[in-house]
């Protein structure tokens, strides 16, 4: 196998890896928003439910979640293909972390500003929309990027369920070329290039939306 066809195969796997990462990250995002709102603004039963979810999920390894969903669920009649099972597992695990990111971001908006909004006669929803949310979104950009790179790297666990993502394509190539060092290094390089470029793009987004006067992370004057 020449290098070009190796790269072609790896690229095919990379596409699956990217699909896994993007879909499960998006799914986690959608789950995490209501859960974080529940943790911050909910009444006591809602707080207990949302916090328990977050604690339990964060306490179970991703691979175990994958095995429960893929190998365990069929015995109660629920079956998923490897790709779907991987997306669900990645999404569920990441949602717990993302809910913590949003919760932290919401709570990072100083209470004094909320009081100031109240003192102007703003209603709770107005304060949330105009004061809390715009600042919380900015606070969450950096940790969310970090979380995305973690999800991207964790997609390699889908290997265990037989999804033909980057790592598995690499392993297939090795079974014919017998060059594990070269191929795995190529896989590592691809993961690195994706996370590195994601970080640089987000860094620009972050700068664009930075609040003036608040120094940018790592670039204090």
């Amino acid at each position, binding site marked *: 196998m020449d290098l070009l066809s190796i790269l072609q195969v790896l690229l095919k796997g990379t596409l699956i890896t990217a699909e896994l990462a993007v879909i499960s990250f998006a799914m986690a995002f959608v789950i995490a928003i209501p859960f974080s709102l529940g943790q911050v603004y909910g009444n006591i039963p809602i707080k207990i439910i949302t916090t328990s979810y977050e604690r339990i999920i964060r306490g179970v390894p991703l691979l175990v979640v994958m095995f429960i969903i893929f190998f365990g669920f069929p015995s109660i009649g629920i079956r998923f293909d490897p790709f779907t099972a991987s997306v669900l597992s990645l999404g569920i695990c990441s949602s717990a972390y993302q809910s913590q990111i949003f919760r932290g971001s919401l709570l990072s908006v100083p209470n004094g*500003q909320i009081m100031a909004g109240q003192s102007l006669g703003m209603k709770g929803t107005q304060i949330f929309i105009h004061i809390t949310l715009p600042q919380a979104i900015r606070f969450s950009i950096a940790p969310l990027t970090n979380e995305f790179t973690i999800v991207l790297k964790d997609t390699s666990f889908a290997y265990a369920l037989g999804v033909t993502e980057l790592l598995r394509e690499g392993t297939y190539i090795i079974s014919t070329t017998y060059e594990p060092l070269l191929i795995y290094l190529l896989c590592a390089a691809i993961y690195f290039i994706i996370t590195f470029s994601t970080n640089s793009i987000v860094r620009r987004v972050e700068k664009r939306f930075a*609040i*003036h006067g608040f120094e940018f992370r790592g670039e204090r004057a």
Partner: protein
Amino acid sequence: MKVLEVRNLKKRYDSNEIIKGISFEMEKGETVVVIGPSGTGKSTMLMCINRLIEPDEGKIFLNGEEITGSKHPEIFRQRIGMVFQEFNLFNHLTVLDNVRIGPIKVKKLPKDIATKVAIENLKKVGLESRMNAYPAQLSGGQKQRVGIARALAMEPQLILFDEPTSALDPELVGEVLEVIKKLAREGMTMLIVTHELGFARDVADRIIFMENGEIIEQGGPEILANPLKERTKQFLAKFREGR
């Protein structure tokens, strides 16, 4: 009619009574300064007035309408300005947006009119040149002047000041006190909690001395020089020593 009427206000935290039945009134255009040792409930009392803190007992009236018991405290908060010790500006908004967000979102003024109102009030505090700056780019004194402009832009019937200069470096205190003095001359009704006794003497129509959740003594600014009650004397004496 009285602008503000406070009757037998009480506030407890657990078994700890922070405010033990306070009553006073304010006339239109009056500047009332509340002094007293730290931790005696001055700020709590102030925040009970616009119900940022919910009082346990007592009644509060704004121009004859009862604030306490209303299901919509935000209706009264629109009419009561508040200036905070820590400024509490909205960090993600420019100075101009900080000042006009109330008129736009709460009073539902059209944007151009709200902008005009905001700029007028920024002129009043001498900061119209910084209207495109963000709070983090301002000095403490400038931040507090924006805080005052933000309160003024709602055209309130009463402004509450919660130790407006306590978080400022000494050299920045003056510019903020000047603005408040100007408002007093213009006839704004203001209730001010402060530790600046010299300022209190200059600006106050009436002084309330509070300790342990009670009003110990109140009267014209002359009580600062000649207090009647022993506790007021002790407090003022401590202050002079401290200087």
